[in-house]
């Protein structure tokens, strides 16, 4: 019998314990499928953050390390520089990457550290119960912005791909959404390209995934993906923000034209 679909070997047999409608399960599977398709599961280390995805090390079928809140890129740097043959990914949420760990994020990008960051942007602190995140959009209610985020009190949400795109060292930056199959297929392509960026030694890569958190948004899973479409994508447009391959090609063409 022809097998048309099977569970990726990049995931373990441990059942995931995420909330219904959570984006982590989809994101984990995309990472796992890419690891398997590129044949790097046995030489990948997943740096696992503080937050709901702290359990990721149980679900992905590669080596793992769980470190301090926000320090994933620094930990990944230490591993990559010690054992450069390792494929190192740092999986981080928005509080982890864009708030407490902002310095590590920016500096690892500016060093063009040869690592891959998978950035889950659900605009909220999930594990601690729904507090305001650096990426919470204006007007969004959280437990620490109960009347909705207001710029004059809480400042503005931080668009990470746009912010990092000005750095020379940021080799590959892309943002996708986990709201519908077409976007999820696109997300996987981005993740694969980010892995390839690292495997080819081209430097820092990050894929941002707009991800639903129905529980802390106080919504049904269906309404949560609707929010991604109606509220998040307009503030966080999807697409590729930096691509070393396209930039190299453009440079070559420019030279040829001269």
């Amino acid at each position: 019998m022809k097998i048309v679909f099977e569970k990726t070997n990049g995931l373990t047999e441990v059942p995931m314990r995420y909330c219904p409608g959570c984006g982590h399960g989809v994101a984990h599977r995309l990472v796992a499928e890419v690891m398997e398709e590129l044949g790097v599961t046995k030489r990948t280390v997943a740096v696992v953050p503080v937050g709901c995805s702290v359990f990721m090390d149980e679900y992905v079928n590669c080596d793992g390390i769980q470190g301090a809140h926000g320090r994933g890129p620094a930990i990944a740097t230490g591993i990559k520089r010690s054992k450069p043959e390792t494929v190192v990914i740092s999986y981080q949420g928005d509080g982890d990457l864009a708030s407490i760990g902002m310095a590590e994020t920016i500096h690892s990008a500016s060093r063009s550290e040869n690592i891959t960051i998978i950035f889950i942007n659900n605009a909220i602190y999930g594990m601690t119960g729904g507090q305001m995140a650096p990426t919470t959009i204006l007007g969004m209610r959280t437990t620490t912005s109960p009347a909705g985020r207001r710029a004059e009190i809480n400042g503005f949400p931080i668009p990470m791909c746009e912010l990092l795109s000005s750095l020379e060292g940021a080799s590959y930056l892309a943002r996708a959404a986990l709201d519908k199959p077409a976007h999820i297929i696109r997300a996987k392509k981005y993740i694969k390209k980010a892995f390839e960026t690292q495997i080819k030694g081209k430097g820092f890569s990050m894929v941002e995934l707009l991800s639903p958190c129905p529980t802390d948004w106080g919504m049904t899973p269906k309404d949560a993906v609707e929010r991604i479409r109606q509220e998040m994508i307009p503030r966080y447009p999807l697409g590729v923000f930096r691509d070393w391959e396209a930039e190299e090609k453009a440079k070559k063409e420019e030279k040829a034209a001269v």
Partner: protein
Amino acid sequence: MAEKTLMKGNEALAEGAVRAGCRFFAGYPITPQNEVPEYMSWRLPQEGGFFIQAESEVAAINMLFGAASTGIRVMTSSSSPGISLKQEGISYCAGADLPIFYANVVRGGPGLGNIAPAQSDYFQATRGGGHGDYRVFVMAPNSVSEMANFPKRCYDVAFKYRVPSMILADGILGQMMEPVEFDFEPVDPSSFPEPDWAIGGDASGRERRVVKSYDLRPGRLEEWNKERAKRFERIEAEEVDWDGEGLDDCELLITSYGSCSRISKSAVKMAREDGLPVGLLRPITLYPFPKKAYQDLAKRVKNILVVEMSLGQFIEDVQLSVLGKVPIHFHGRPAGGIPTAEEIYDIVRKIMGK
């Protein structure tokens, strides 16, 4: 090997770590330890190792956490405020059973303090330092030669017991120059077998591994902590080190560690020249603390004088060892104050009524 080289303390510390197999260093500038990262920046690449200047002390210790997880010998160094910033990461290393080595070239505090030598980070060093139940193997050199030779012992203990290890120095030891003699042959870390807990690299011949400090299953973290406590018990039984002089017949015992013990040694010499029976006990390891040496001496001496460059931190371990059996006197100079042998000797004479 017996050749003596004139070296600055911080450079001796760095060279000692490289010879002991260090192949990864992450650090951040802070006085008075800057010679350590500066030295590592050119020296480590010669050995195929890696130096990185981190964006902060917080990043540096987390780079160490990552590098240590691959099973290699790693190092960071800093001075007091920077070591405070590193405490969370050190706690994670302790919690994940990662062997790391770091040095605190102590300066005056609290806060920004000053850049003068001090011994005011004793509590932080010997009580763990960060959050959670753990200790750090702490060595206190008192010469540039010991700055060069102690990193090897720190690595050996860190890897044997899977605990953090450190050197507690100060601005005097970091900045002064003395002849250095290495008491060991350079170690080739590529000859070490890869530890069975190391992650990364080619994992095709083994099960996947995870390095972490958390365990949410009921009771498991308690068991893990108790298992770690057993390792610390073994360290206390097997790794204590101290030296002394004039201990056989002394009536008054001076006790100091680190650079302060050099000054106290001069005071002992002055007392002996005047025929006063004064001795010196100098802990080499601060954790584990040489409790038994103090307990034995407490049976014989009449007075103990603790001299340290702080307002009284090391004295608490002496008190806990002696348990009130002998009167303990104190002379402390905090925040960059350095006692002289003369002022120590004056106190000695007062105590002895001479």
